[in-house]
């Protein structure tokens, strides 16, 4: 498209003197990753794409369902059953062919998050669960990426901007300065239980797009160090000042390796005891024929064992190498039993009820110790 057409597309915002051609150029140069193409993601994506954000990534592994359509306004009945990220990207491409849209039709996890985020300048979280929210927060803290936060429940929404400084003396605030630790099961209702009025994510998602555009272009006062709440029933807004607290940072993984080892699903929900088996069950299982035992540690991690046959598939390669798994019973193990629970969760998402999946509790170290005790 020629320069005149570009000018025409954005003319109404370029003539704002605070915004101008400079603001437009900043948007075109910006790269924003939107987590979730759901209730918050749809309006956010629509406005960011329309405004001319140059590169937009969309992460969502979900498919469009009929019950989404009352609030996820990028989709129509023809999209039901199709990938949200891909359908959203194709709609937005028609809206604005001048920008780059990248659909990531996968679930964001602590194994791929850092890699995904590092290609973008800003992250906007419109996810629908605490595990992803805490994970995105921690990832953005580690990579020092500005995070535009929004969340909803029933008739109320929250918006804030994290990991940004108002001035050079400020300590950046993150989600853990507001809610240090995730609620446990039953402490908070999830969206499916609580319900949501369709227009609410429309309002909050649009506020998030607004904050994102303000941050990119440097206009106005973004909600840095501030939580804004909005109530659709009363139209009340309430703003609260947030302060960085060093003790909350100790809850965040200290580096990228410990981030990859953190089990966010476990942190935010009931402990997945369903997968865990102890050494005695493990010993009886390894006698069976129709079983795949998988070492999910990195290739060079020790100790090895000759006591049983096993596959070596590191945790972060499990998803793409799942075709190596042939048998109906799977047992995962690692050093201490943490990564193997994550592996079991990943495998149960892939195979659903088709296979029985277990994780060796305590890991290979405890198993070896117990074996030694019996000898």
């Amino acid at each position, binding site marked *: 498209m020629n320069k005149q057409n570009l000018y025409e597309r954005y003319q109404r915002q370029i003539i704002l003197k605070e915004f101008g051609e400079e603001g437009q150029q900043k948007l075109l140069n910006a790269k924003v990753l939107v987590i979730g193409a759901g209730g918050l993601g749809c309006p956010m994506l629509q406005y960011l794409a329309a405004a001319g954000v140059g590169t937009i990534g969309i992460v969502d592994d979900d498919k469009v369902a009929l019950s989404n359509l009352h609030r996820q306004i990028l989709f129509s009945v023809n999209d039901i059953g199709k990938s949200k990220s891909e359908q959203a990207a194709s709609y937005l491409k028609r809206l604005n062919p001048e920008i780059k849209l990248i659909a990531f039709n996968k679930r964001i996890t602590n194994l791929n998050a850092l890699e995904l985020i590092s290609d973008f300048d800003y992250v906007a979280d419109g996810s629908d669960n605490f595990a992803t929210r805490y994970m995105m927060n921690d990832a953005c803290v580690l990579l020092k990426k500005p995070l535009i936060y929004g969340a909803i*429940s029933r008739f109320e929404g929250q918006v804030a901007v994290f990991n940004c400084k108002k001035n050079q003396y400020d300590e950046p605030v993150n989600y853990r300065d507001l809610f240090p630790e995730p609620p446990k099961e039953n*402490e*908070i209702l*999830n969206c499916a239980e609580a319900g949501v009025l369709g227009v609410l994510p429309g309002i909050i998602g649009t506020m998030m797009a607004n904050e994102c555009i303000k941050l990119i272009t440097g206009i106005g006062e973004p909600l840095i160090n501030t939580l804004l*709440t909005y109530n659709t029933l*009363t139209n009340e807004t309430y703003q609260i000042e947030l*302060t960085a607290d060093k003790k909350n940072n100790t809850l965040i993984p200290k580096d990228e390796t410990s981030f990859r080892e953190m089990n966010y699903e476990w942190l935010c929900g009931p402990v997945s005891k369903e997968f865990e088996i102890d050494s005695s069950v493990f010993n009886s299982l390894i006698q069976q024929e129709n079983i795949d035992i998988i070492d999910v540690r990195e290739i060079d991690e020790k100790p090895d064992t000759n006591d049983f046959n096993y596959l070596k598939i590191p945790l972060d390669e499990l998803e793409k190498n799942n075709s190596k798994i042939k048998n109906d019973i799977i047992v995962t193990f690692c050093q201490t039993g943490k990564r193997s629970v994550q592996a079991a969760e990943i495998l149960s998402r892939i195979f659903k009820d088709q296979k029985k999946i277990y994780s060796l509790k305590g890991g290979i170290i405890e198993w070896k110790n117990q074996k030694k005790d019996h000898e």
Partner: protein
Amino acid sequence: MPDCLILQMRYMEIILFGQLRDLAGSNRISVGVVTDTNDLQKELNLKYPDFANTKYAIAVDKKIISKTVPLNAESEIALLPPFSGG
């Protein structure tokens, strides 16, 4: 009626958000004046036992607190649970 006046002064108002509104059946509640946020939580748990099983942040005078802070009858207190929906 000086006694009534004194009695009135001894309540503090708390603004509720999210599911706390449903648990209390109201957007705002009052409790007797307490000296700090620690005592406030004890008082709330007595008066509203369901609050004890709910996670929320406390804001005093529109600032999130991360440790116990003193309160008085004029303190503006808000209780905000986290939301996960998107």
